[in-house]
């Protein structure tokens, strides 16, 4: 195609490259990302369960990975992702009933999801750390 003005394709204005991240779009993409992350984690969970079912030697191998500090950090991330996705999911279910669509409600519910996820993750991990040893 010749490069004359009539035939050249029109440039596209930037979209995600310049659009401001707002609570609306950030929570939405986080919901999707945590969902993917949790789906991948489901495989890890199955590996853990199969190892537990196989026997003590297999389980010991998996246990080393889980109790290592990297494993603990990943587990912390997984709990946070889980609660974020869970609370976000409840927010979506409420939206399906056509409630909570005013901008004020959207923002309150959005921050509530973040706060609830942080609080629940903290609660679970406080309990878990206090049960250690």
């Amino acid at each position, binding site marked *: 195609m010749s490069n004359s003005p009539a035939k050249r394709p*029109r440039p596209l*204005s930037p979209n995600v*490259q310049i659009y401001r991240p707002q609570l609306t779009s950030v929570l939405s993409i986080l919901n999707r990302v945590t969902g993917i992350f949790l789906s991948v984690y489901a495989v890890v969970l199955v590996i853990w369960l199969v190892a537990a079912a196989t026997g003590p030697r297999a389980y010991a191998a998996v246990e080393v990975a889980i109790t290592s500090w990297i494993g603990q950090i990943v587990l912390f991330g997984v709990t946070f992702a889980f609660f974020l996705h869970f609370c976000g999911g409840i927010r979506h279910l409420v939206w*399906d009933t*056509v409630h909570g669509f005013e*901008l*004020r409600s959207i923002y309150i519910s959005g921050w509530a999801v973040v706060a609830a996820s942080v609080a629940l993750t903290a609660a679970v991990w406080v309990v878990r750390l206090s049960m250690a040893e």
Partner: protein
Amino acid sequence: MIIESSNQVPRATLLKRFPIPRNFGVTPESRIVRGKAWPAPAAAVRVNDPDSRENPRLDTFEVDLDECGPMVLDALFWIKNKVDSTLTFRRSCREGICGSCSMNIDGTNWLACTRFISDLANPATIYPLANMQIIKDLVPDLTHLFAQYAAIEPWLKSKTREPPTERPQSSVERSKIDGYYECILCFCCTSGCPSHWWNGDRFLGPAVLLQAWRWLADSRDEGTGERLDNLEDPFRLYRCHTILNCTRTCPKGLNPGKAIAEIKKMLIERRS
């Protein structure tokens, strides 16, 4: 932190854009290059995209705010009159009712004539409406958006005979279209919808779906069944994942997210 209405300017400065490369996923002809810094009398930065072989560029202008009106549109006119007369943008009413001057100001879509300069960052960034084919500078090509609007058949459909006087409608029935008939078709919402960015060729977008709901909610319209049949499609309606950038950015304070949820609810209700 709690946003009550869409005309509240985003304040949080933690993230001005998603942390991705500036030219991520951009076709070669759309890549933005460094532009000219026009000599002072400066505060606004914007994309310039001339009808030449060059890539669009981001020029920097300094605007003397003492000589200029309070709105972003006034600043654009000041630049056009005093600095660069080739700066091209759409405008008409200068009061936020025609929808011509919609553009991306400091990262969010809004009308230039209703955005105060004092609400902007310094330097401010002005881009054309996101994810649109650009004709020149800040002028997007809205052809396919209006084609999507025509596709929902935005007119009264009636099978019964036309009454001799008006089609009666109670005030309660009339209030059902409040918040939907006021749309000025500026397309700030559609241009800010990430789902429309990725599937804009088939997803109708919030502006068009808001108008679809306006006709579904109108008690005088008798084509409800056909309209719903038209919308029941994985792409035309159901690409909406309730991201809600649309409601956040509407310069008229309308709620496309809610309208789309109402359409989805109506579709479910008619199944039962």
